[in-house]
């Protein structure tokens, strides 16, 4: 079982890598509006990064249901278990 702390740590790394911004620190309530440069194309790259890092696949429907980073972490933890 993944701890959500370690998921945040790995997500930070993915986000920093894709957005090339080492200052990013994700919280549960973080949304695309809070992070500069997080547009639809970046979102695709983030999701690809998540799939690769955690070995999970999120369907389009599951992706649409995510409202913030907290939802994403929950989705990762429940699938990667």
């Amino acid at each position, binding site marked *: 079982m993944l701890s959500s702390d370690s998921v945040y740590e790995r997500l930070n790394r993915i986000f920093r*890598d*894709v957005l*090339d911004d080492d200052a990013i620190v994700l919280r549960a309530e973080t949304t695309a509006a809070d992070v500069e440069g997080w547009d639809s*194309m970046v979102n*695709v*790259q983030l*999701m*690809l990064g998540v799939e*690769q890092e955690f070995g999970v*696949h999120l*369907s*389009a429907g599951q*992706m649409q249901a995510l409202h913030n980073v907290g939802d994403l972490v929950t989705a990762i933890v429940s699938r990667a278990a």
Partner: protein
Amino acid sequence: MISNLFESLAWLPRPPADFRQRLRDAMELDAPGPALHALATHALDAANLRRLSAAVAALAARGTSLAPLAPFRLGVLGNGTLDLIVPALVGSALRHGVALQCVTVPYGLYPREILDPQSAINRAGCDAVLLAFDARALPLQAADASPAQALDMIDGFRDNLRRHGGTTCIVQTLAAFPEALFGSADRRIAAAPRYLVDAFNRDLVARLEGSPDILFDVAGLAETVGLARWHCPAQWNVAKLPFADACVPLYADHVGRLLGAMRGKSRRCLVLDLDNTVWGGVIGDDGLEGIEIAEGHAVGEAFRAVQRLALDLRGRGIVLAVSSKNDDAVARRAFRDHPEMLLRENHLAVFQANWNDKASNIKAIAEELSLGLESFVFLDDNPVERGIVRRLLPEVAVPELPDDPAYYARTLAAAGYFESLAFSEEDRRRAEFYQRNAERVALKQSAGDLGAYYASLGMEIHFAPFDAMGRARIVQLINKSNQFNLTTRRYSEAEVAALEQDREAFTLQVRLTDVFGDNGMISVVICRPEQLHAAGSRTWAIDTWLMSCRVLGRSVEQMVLRELVLAARRRGIERLVGRYIPSGRNTMVADHYATLGFSRDGEAWVLDVASPESAPTMKIVRAPTFDCPLETRSLETRSLEDPPPEDRATAA
């Protein structure tokens, strides 16, 4: 790694951990071209390719020249999302000697861009336009679809781009989708998707005949990867990615190869190592009969595949040469006398078998053939040799090789070093033009500082006395080593076991590890009390000293001698006596003792152990059971700055 050899770009070394810092450093250089090329020559993921692409754009904005990389302006048109692909193209083109600038158009606007003479793409002065269309863009979906209609559409694009933009097109074959309709009959039934794609690809090749436009065989690439891995329906649906993101670095590398070929950057000469690259085993130790190269033999066939690929490459104009750490006559015997060898001396332009470093040898080969170093590929199973050449001759392409030789040929072919746009009669004859019949060329100068390279390897030398655990390997080395073997004395397993208990003898088994891993046992030494010397003189005769040629040139001999000297002092021994017994196969160590500072004494070589020992050039690790009374810790590891206690004692 083997299962995704292609997508992982397994022939390229993994990027350094400080890739981003190195990129920042490169951007501060006045001439960053070579540094960017070196950085690009790693197996880079999308993020690092994007960083390289951003660097190229920033340097272009500053007006910094990227020479010697060839500038290239490429239009990119396609029916899918190209945002992930374009940065990868720029980053990958650097690897192939091309400083790429891409011209793109907004998603979905390609038909207008092609047809309008005043469009951005037609006015950009592109050197080429990549038509990155897949089957979804073409009328190949409907039941009444025809390949001719789809091909007419592509022809129309090509005509317009040539007429309005004056540009060459790079046209893709289509990757079939894995979803079958009828089953096997999809290849036969004209309405089946697979049939349509096959027909399109076949006729596309025919239509490109006589045209300056260039074929990019995406179908072949996708089949190599596997169509189910190539096409990702989820990524198409979510982001209109025309193929799976995992395949982007590979796709981009293939585009880079074509651009490099258009700019004359393809490589022309393959330099081969011999032992464990072209045949299995070490010919100097295993002998002509001992190397593995036979057809019908699992190990031998792996190496035959390398030879066959080399021969096929020669047939299409690639010059072949050899650079091997070997005795020249011994190595040539395999080419002359081994019945199973496919490669013969007359296939090789230059034949360098000597004990010098490979970078200097490759440099000499390049000068002899009047080919630039950027034309060379160097194939070697030994990661240390690969590292030397990469470091001292960064222009030379040096593929990584997997552990299993069965994949050597595939890895070399997958790297695509010899990408060619066409094949002419001249190509066919080129290898003969360069033929020097396995000439041996003189080394003019050393290629660079090997000491700094070896220092970067993080070498650790492990010393232990003979023990039951090492016995089998010790016996094997004693009975097999021919080249770096001072006396070639052979001992049975029982005799070696007896030495473990012999309190008069001093034995060493030596291992070497480095950043590439454990080289295993690489040296064996046996000392016995010298019987011939005058009474009262406490002398060790070095009965046996052998070493694997694989670690030649890395100061292992000096470190072993140092260990002998320290051990001798501890036991009150005053002199070491070494002998060189010529065996016909060990000429490489004729000067061994002279080089190490021994003095001649008749037929023998003598060293006074009171003379100061050399400084350690690597980390020393001694086994717990080792004869080392001053040690207190069980497994001693020390850094170079922290000399062992007995060093201090003897220095005092």
